[in-house]
């Protein structure tokens, strides 16, 4: 083996030690302005990669304007647009602020954030709390008066209730929740009902301890019990926290972030720092929730939620979540074949995430750009389908575009060869 290949092998081994050795814990819930690095009262974050205002997809534009109205930064939509164009409202990707956002990923100063600490490395990552179920949410790029009221309730009631309970818990072990949830039929991206249930179980005693029989607690519990996908955002923040220590690791070819903005798909690679490698995002194949909706209404692939695939969950372990196959008219054989395929592009397997239907095989983890280019196998991502004008309209799966990995490989060769 050449010296260069040996250095890459060592760096990738170290990257996987950092990722798999991470211990992500939910330690706090707080407004973005208080905890997110670089956050300001007039900053609005969106799902990565960065993109100019006039090239943004509908859900991003609507969501950013909605957040500006909700925060009281702008008087109306036209005013918000003027402020954005003048630079008076700063727009930036969540990833550039150690955060991740599902769907449009809209995060503003007052947004309650889940604070996840990777206690192995001491770094923190953040994600907005889930708005709950429903097709019309700010995260899907929709805003109106009712959505604004719900966001205010989350900021004023739910956020503080969760904050008190999470602090009283002494921190909630997210890695343990993921391990159990995968054995209960979650792939931890399009299906998180098991992980959400396990999270609520961990939170039950601290909720009662911290808030007793207050009306705010009852309201919050009613919301949480109805929100099947609530903990996806906690898993996303955990994934980001797990991957951050590997970012910037010299000679490593492991992917440290994947994200989509509805126009472009982007990846970051450990040995190439914070540079994004982008290509046009693909269309999501799957089930549309109403017969009147089809591909012509959908925006291409959108959201930071594929940070879950970046740590080997979601589309990488479809075999763990048979129900998710319903979105793509799939079957168990195909789900297993997909997971075996993902093994071919990963550095190793994760024994903390075992797939019962594959004799408890560990999940594929550590996407290696060299293997992606060599095999022609693009990462498979479970994801939602969003309407061009905003709103959730379906769910399914999508491939990352190969061009991102080819560009990254060329940049890697240029830097290290």
């Amino acid at each position, binding site marked *: 083996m050449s010296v260069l*290949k040996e250095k890459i092998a060592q760096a990738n081994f170290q990257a996987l030690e950092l990722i798999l050795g991470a211990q992500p814990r939910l330690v706090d819930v707080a407004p973005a302005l208080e905890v997110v690095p670089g956050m300001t009262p007039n900053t609005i974050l969106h799902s990565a990669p960065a993109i100019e205002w006039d090239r943004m997809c509908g859900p991003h534009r609507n969501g950013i304007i909605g957040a500006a109205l909700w925060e009281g930064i702008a008087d109306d939509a036209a005013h918000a647009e003027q402020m954005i164009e003048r630079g008076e409202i700063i727009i930036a990707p969540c990833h550039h602020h150690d955060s991740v956002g599902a769907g449009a990923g809209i995060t503003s100063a007052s947004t309650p954030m889940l604070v996840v600490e990777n206690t192995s490395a001491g770094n923190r990552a953040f994600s907005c709390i889930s708005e709950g179920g429903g097709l019309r949410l700010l995260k899907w790029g929709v805003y109106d008066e009712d959505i604004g009221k719900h966001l205010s309730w989350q900021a004023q009631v739910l956020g503080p209730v969760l904050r008190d309970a999470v602090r009283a818990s002494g921190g909630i072990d997210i890695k343990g929740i993921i391990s159990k949830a995968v054995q209960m039929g979650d792939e931890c991206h399009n299906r998180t009902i098991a992980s959400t249930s396990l999270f609520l179980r961990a939170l039950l005693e601290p909720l009662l301890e911290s808030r007793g029989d207050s009306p705010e607690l009852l309201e919050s519990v009613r919301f949480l019990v109805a929100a099947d996908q609530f903990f996806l955002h906690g898993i996303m923040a955990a994934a980001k926290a797990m991957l951050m220590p590997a970012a910037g690791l010299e000679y490593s070819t492991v992917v440290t972030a994947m994200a989509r903005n509805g126009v472009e798909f982007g990846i970051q690679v450990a040995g190439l720092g914070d540079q994004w490698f982008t290509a046009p995002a693909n269309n999501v194949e799957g089930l549309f929730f109403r017969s009147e909706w089809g591909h012509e209404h959908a925006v291409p692939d959108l959201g930071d939620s594929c940070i879950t695939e970046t740590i080997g969950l979601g589309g990488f372990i479809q075999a763990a979540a048979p129900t998710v196959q319903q979105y793509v008219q799939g079957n168990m*054989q195909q789900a297993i*074949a997909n997971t075996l*395929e993902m093994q071919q592009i990963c550095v190793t397997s994760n024994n903390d995430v075992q797939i019962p239907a594959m004799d408890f095989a560990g999940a594929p983890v550590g996407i290696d750009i060299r293997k992606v280019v*060599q095999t022609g196998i*693009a990462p498979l991502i479970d994801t939602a389908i969003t309407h061009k004008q905003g709103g959730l309209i379906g769910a399914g799966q999508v491939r990352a575009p190969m061009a991102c990995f*080819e560009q990254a490989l060329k940049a890697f060769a240029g830097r290290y*060869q």
Partner: protein
Amino acid sequence: MMPTTATVTLPEQLVVINVGLELFADTLREQQQTVTHVQWEPPAQGDAELLDMLDALL
């Protein structure tokens, strides 16, 4: 002399693994057949520059 043609009778329950072009899998799915598709492409899609890089890096 007329050319002979062989007739193949397929079993009622097909078990199909499709490798490469997904169009063939899609066609069978449209006929309600169960297909397991395996994505396959030539290494680096045959790109000589990328293949050279892979030789050095992998």
